[in-house]
């Protein structure tokens, strides 16, 4: 559970950074003249929290196979899209007019979701490199060789 929470926390901070970038790009594209108050600073954090909820709720102690992991990731991403779209557009009545924005946000969520996993993988790549170096030292020491 501890490892899962650490992974989720790292994912949260990467998400918040990427959401901020996505809001900047989508805002410039759809509503470039819109002005915000200080509450705008809270939105990336709120979306980051919403995005973390499915991951926290869907935690399983079971070791999943590659196929199960991919299915779970797809379900998790779909849930995040539904939650964020509901949070952002749920209060509006003119939904058909908002379709382009909804599609833009959905695509952004997919891109952010993939990027979060990509950055997580990059961090794991660095960890794996350190582990391999430690392994070589361990093997050398265990086989009686000097460092």
């Amino acid at each position: 559970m501890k490892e899962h929470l650490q992974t989720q926390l790292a994912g949260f901070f990467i998400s918040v950074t990427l959401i901020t970038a996505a809001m900047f790009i989508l805002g410039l594209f759809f509503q470039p003249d819109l002005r915000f108050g200080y509450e705008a600073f809270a939105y990336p954090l709120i979306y980051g929290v919403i995005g973390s909820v499915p991951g926290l709720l869907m935690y399983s102690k079971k070791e999943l196979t590659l196929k199960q992991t991919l299915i779970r990731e797809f379900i998790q991403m779909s849930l995040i899209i539904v939650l964020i779209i509901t949070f952002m557009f749920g209060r509006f009545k003119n939904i058909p007019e908002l379709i382009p924005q909804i599609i833009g946000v959905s695509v952004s969520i997919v891109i952010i979701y993939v990027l979060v996993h990509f950055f997580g993988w990059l961090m794991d790549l660095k960890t794996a490199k350190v582990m391999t170096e430690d392994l070589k030292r361990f093997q050398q020491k265990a086989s009686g060789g000097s460092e």
Partner: protein
Amino acid sequence: MEITVKKIGESEKEYIEIGCHRKDERVDEIVRFIRSREGILKGTKEDRQYNIPLPDILYIEAVDEKTFIYLQNDCYESGRRLYEFEGVLISRNFARISKSVIVNLMKIDSIRPSLNGRFSCVLTNGEQVIISRKYVPDIKERLKGGSV
């Protein structure tokens, strides 16, 4: 046959060298004996029991109430449970890397990231076994200079 025993310094790696005209059954027997001194496990294959030297083992896996011992090109079955092996092998350069696998740390070629915070060990025969998230901190600690 002349036998020479030479004392070497503590910092040097211990070795046994056999000088022979050809590598025949007699030499193989001596090698098997020497390797057995490093520890053996008993495994069965096609109803025959074999002594498997620990350094030859790549990993041990539990699958559906059965335990299998994997070597470079061979696989043996064992009647012992995985936790029994864990108790014996933890001090012999083996480590538990998931609920169902104990790996020989000396047979890992490299470690790679896998999906979902897991890592995979690439073994010397090219096979890959998964280190599950739960065991990653223990493996890191072990490799960092924990018990050898």
